[in-house]
């Protein structure tokens, strides 16, 4: 049973990893914490769920979810980053999260909606462990995303501009980085990831509610800090570690101990190493 719990931990962890990656992009590059990110994921999940239950195909659902999430991310970028002044950005993203969550409860109500996932019975059995199609897909996508993003950030021109912006905003502007373009693209990218994560969440948890994104969002934020800002790889690994820690504490201690384990871990990191395990970004401290 222990090994199966580890597998459960990895699967839950990769959900946190996916969202943590989209968090760390925005925070790493623009030093802005988008607390509405969880709710954007929910939008993706709900849209995909609606399309699937209306008989649409999986690719159609995935495409629609990504489209909606990118649109919402750009909305957040405009109303919560570009317009308001520096220190009120935190407040505006929280307000945006509140708006989105209540729109979902308004439209879809507060019940959980069954997510018609992959119907293929395909599964791999390794000794006692069993991975069904959804779980394999999730692991593949998480790994692919972590590698792709790390390459993007380290190798591509856009990645270099993102890193320049995250190191020193004024220096970046002076050396010709088009701040506006990079900001919008970073948000669009995080929207893309949120869209994919939304569909994955639906498949893994087999049902979606208006509150799905919120619960994953809090944990993803923890993973992002522990993993290290601006490092997709770090966020990914930390997300998975967090998933395992949570599943084991729920499995062996009981559900009420779940937060007790996760949040002190975060505070320890914030205190000792705010830049996280793989943190590249220079962390602004007192």
């Amino acid at each position, binding site marked *: 049973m222990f090994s199966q719990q580890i597998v459960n931990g990895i699967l839950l962890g990769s959900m946190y990893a996916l969202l943590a990656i989209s968090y760390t992009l925005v*925070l790493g590059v623009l*030093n*802005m*914490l988008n607390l509405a990110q969880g709710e954007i994921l929910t939008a993706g999940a709900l849209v995909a769920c609606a399309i699937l239950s209306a008989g649409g195909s999986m690719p159609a659902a995935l495409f629609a979810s990504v489209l909606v999430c990118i649109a919402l991310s750009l909305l957040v970028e405009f*109303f*919560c980053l570009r*317009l*308001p*002044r520096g*220190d*009120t950005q*935190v*407040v*505006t993203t*929280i*307000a*945006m999260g*509140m*708006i989105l*969550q*209540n*729109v979902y*409860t*308004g439209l879809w109500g507060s019940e959980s909606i069954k997510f018609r996932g992959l119907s293929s019975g395909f599964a791999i059995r390794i000794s006692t462990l069993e991975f069904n199609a959804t779980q394999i897909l999730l692991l593949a996508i998480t790994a692919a995303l972590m590698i792709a993003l790390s390459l993007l950030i380290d190798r591509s021109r856009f990645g270099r501009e993102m890193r320049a912006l995250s190191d020193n905003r004024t220096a970046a502007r002076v050396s010709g980085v088009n701040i506006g373009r990079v900001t919008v693209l970073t948000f669009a990218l995080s929207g893309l990831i949120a869209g994919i994560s939304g569909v994955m969440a639906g498949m893994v948890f087999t049902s979606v509610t208006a509150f799905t994104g919120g619960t994953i969002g*809090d944990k993803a*934020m*923890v993973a992002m*800090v522990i993993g290290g800002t601006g490092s997709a790889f770090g966020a990914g690994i930390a997300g998975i570690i967090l998933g395992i820690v949570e599943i084991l504490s729920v499995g062996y201690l009981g559900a*009420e*101990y*779940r*937060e*007790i384990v996760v*949040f*002190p871990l*975060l*505070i320890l990191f*914030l*205190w000792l190493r*705010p830049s996280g395990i793989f943190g590249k970004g220079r*962390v*602004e*401290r*007192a």
Partner: protein
Amino acid sequence: MNVYYTGLFVTFLINVLCALSVYVILKSGQISVGNAGFMAVGGYVAGILSTVYGLGIPASVAAGSAAAALCGAVVGIPALRLKGTYLVIGTISFTAMIRSIAQVLDITGGAMGLKGMKRIGILWIVIFAVLVIALLFLFEKTRYGLDVEAVAADSEAAAAAGVRVILIKVLSFTLGAAIAGIAGGCYAHWTQYIEPSDFSTSVSTMMVLPVILGGRNRIAGAVLGAAVFTILPELLRFASVWRMVIYGVLVIAIVIVKPDGLISGRKRHA
């Protein structure tokens, strides 16, 4: 005053205390989105003292506030190392930790919450609120108030001028936490039932929004913000399901139009 308006008035007073607790910390340049955690400590300690140990309500609210102040100092010291976004994450996770502790312990009633507190007199809540406002008003007139403003403006330059920056920052956190503790104690004895989910992250943000909305550099700003935040939900009751959506849109609109809040004038030192 009939029953409904007294209920609303008390909610207003508690919202004022909550807003002021964020105001005091924000005044020293630190934004804390975790004051619901201090409020929880204040509420639970006061609740337990008055139900299990039979302490008088005002005394237990004061004790709850002291316990919250202690937490404020404990959070304030590591907070020195964090700025902006990281302080927000740190304070959010502090509240989450307090919530999970309250959920596990038996003395706090776990997930079922703490009940049986007797009703606090409205007069006592008024006294606490007026006391806090008066103290803050006077404190801002003193030279320490000036130090706080300097630290918020530029902590390095303030240090170079001899201001004890670390003392001021930790003091602000402690004071803010104490005020949130009072709010928690009053809330616990007014609704006579508290549970961990009463102190969620969204409650913390509901404590921050009034200060940013009303005006973060004037006590009057925080009080006005609290008034707007008490009356708005009652006004929007007709919109039931879409109430919170309008609420959120309003907040974003005001923050963009009036970044300094409704009252943004500076107060001069006599």
